[in-house]
């Protein structure tokens, strides 16, 4: 037989609670207990509120460049919910909701965007890594973290998040390839929001799905409606089961949309149509859940109003806490460069100068402020 089949493969798409309120009982029933659902919804609303508050703060000069998560909350939240709390959560910057669920103080995230490294000092028990700024680089760390767990015989896995744009970077490829070929249990979760700043998704991946990127590595791949918390949880459970039992990676594409600008430094009206945004607003993961819970009788407009009020108050309190954090001291420019500072760096820190004639430590410009 001169032409034979070398491979046939398929990718499935999961949707449970769709934008019209249809709910698939077969897949969805019992997936998320009502009590959890309420807490998950609460987290989403708080996260959304934080976006709004942070945006306003940035506009009034009290916050640096800030990337809103608006519209994408269900992806990281569903993942954090399905994972164990000691699985590694290796995120980019649109996973605030998942981090909040994990218990990472939102203060950390805000401090980071306020230009303060202390925001990245993620408390160890959360098993969450610092916010990743260079696109596409953090997935390799996720692979390394899960590899370390495997080496030590721990059951811990990694779940790493990244955008559609990030899948264009070479590091994305290398992370998937290491995990697939060295048998490392990593869940690669792409939040496909169809834009990388102003560049449309087809420039990053003109294939019918982003999920099929996983086929290159022989990974099982799945596409889920990323604005459907149920679908995300369903997909994550499959992925987690696979990763834990086989020790191998899994690829999930969450189809979603960022409803806001890329960051506060961006103006998305320059490059995309309002009609597109409106269409996606109708698929908002929060609205969808609210309608579902209301129909189910476990939620009401009054409860929602109360929740929003509480969320706003809590966000404002967080902001105020962050703004009251003592400013970092000049010495911190130096203190974390190495565990032990070389003498030269000590001198630079003590003098505040780099020129040699200025490096007489007895002439400290502000000795008190140095540490």
């Amino acid at each position: 037989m001169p032409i034979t089949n070398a491979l046939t493969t398929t990718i499935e798409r999961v949707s449970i609670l769709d934008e019209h309120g249809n709910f698939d009982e077969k897949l969805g029933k019992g997936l998320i207990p009502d009590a959890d659902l309420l807490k998950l919804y609460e987290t989403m609303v708080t996260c959304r509120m934080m976006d709004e508050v942070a945006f306003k703060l940035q506009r009034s000069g009290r916050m640096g460049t800030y990337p809103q998560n608006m519209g994408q909350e269900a992806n990281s939240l569903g993942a954090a919910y399905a994972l164990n709390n000691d699985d590694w959560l290796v995120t980019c910057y649109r996973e605030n909701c998942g981090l909040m669920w994990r218990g990472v103080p939102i203060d950390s995230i805000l401090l980071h965007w306020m230009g303060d490294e202390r925001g990245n000092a993620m408390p160890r028990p959360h098993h969450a890594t610092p916010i990743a700024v260079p696109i596409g680089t953090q997935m390799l760390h996720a692979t390394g973290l899960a590899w370390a767990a495997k080496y030590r015989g721990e059951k811990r896995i990694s779940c790493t998040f990244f955008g559609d744009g990030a899948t264009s970077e070479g590091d994305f490829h290398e992370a998937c390839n290491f995990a697939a070929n060295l048998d490392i249990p990593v869940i690669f979760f792409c939040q496909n929001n169809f834009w990388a700043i102003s560049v449309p998704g087809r420039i990053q991946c003109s294939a019918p799905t982003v999920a099929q990127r996983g086929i290159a590595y022989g990974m099982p791949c799945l596409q889920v409606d990323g604005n459907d918390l149920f679908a995300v949880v369903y997909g994550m459970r499959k992925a987690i089961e696979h990763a834990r039992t086989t020790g191998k990676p899994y690829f999930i594409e969450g189809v979603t949309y960022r409803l806001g600008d890329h960051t506060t430094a961006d103006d998305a009206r320059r490059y995309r149509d309002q009609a597109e945004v409106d269409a996606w607003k109708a698929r908002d993961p929060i609205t969808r859940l609210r309608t579902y819970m209301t129909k189910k009788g476990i939620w009401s407009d009054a409860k929602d109003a109360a929740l929003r009020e509480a969320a706003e108050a809590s966000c404002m309190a967080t902001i105020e806490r962050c703004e009251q954090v003592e400013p970092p001291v000049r010495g911190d420019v130096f203190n974390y460069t190495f565990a032990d500072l070389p003498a030269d760096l000590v001198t630079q820190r003590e003098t505040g100068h780099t020129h040699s004639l200025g490096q007489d430590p007895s002439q400290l410009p502000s000795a008190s402020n140095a540490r």
Partner: protein
Amino acid sequence: MANLTLVQAINLALIQEMEKDDRVILLGEDVGNNGGVFRVTEGLQKRFGANRVVDTPLAESGIIGTSIGLAMAGLRPVPEIQFEGFLGPAYDQLCSHAARMRTRTRGAFTVPMTVRVPVGGGIHAPELHSDSPEAFYTHQPGLKVVMPSGPYDAKGLLISALRDPDPVIFFEPKRIYRAIREEVPEDEYTIPIGKARVVCEGTDLTVVSWGASVIQCMQAIEACGRSVELIDLRTIYPMDMETVEASVSKTGRCVIVHEAPRTCGVGSEVATQIMEKCFLHLEAPVQRVTGFDTIMPYYKLELEYLPDAARIQRGIEDCLAY
């Protein structure tokens, strides 16, 4: 003649060269429809078409690697790397290929490309958006490195870069993208790559700098009230040591100012060459006022890191007092 910002001057240079030479094409992340995150390429895709101003996938090695291919085929690609911190993934294609192509093929293939890169700190940006990596590309043979300090120079230097037969890294100090305006002739003019500019003459001490730091140097010089000569290198490689040597031979003292970390920064090269060339004229050791040998801090502390007028002034005064 118009009063332009650096962003506008670069935009103008690009327009004029693209109109003259259809081998010039722009590529990078967000350079097309969005006109670049700093709006440097604003309006260019409309004007020249999506074939000549191309939004690429988010992959810096890909941007430089395909630009090398474009250049090998005889085009004159102008890739943009969105921030200097994202040159990292492109480092290998730049240093292993772009820099080496002419040498390793004995001139059979060349890489006439200009890599545009916003550079430096001071704009309250997130991490990796405020670094100054010029020394890396200066140490790599086969690359030219340019960094203008104002709109007039930017236009003239960029046109030279676009016409250069070899790869040029063109660093654009983002801190002064819009902070200063200068008269920039509409007419075409070039500023040669490899020629420094004496910003102001002086007899007591020479300050050597480049990029946005030149502004801080001017403030410091003003503040210290002495006769200080200021040299803006403009091109970091090839370095115009002739101008520096002439100045330091006259003044006998020199302070070098840059944002990058001190260790193995470009300042050490300038200082060493001054020692080599002006040894008998030197009345004090050449001083370096630079970023610290630490990671560029997040923005709450960035002004502690960047050499400001006060630190420069102190360097000048300590050097004068020696």
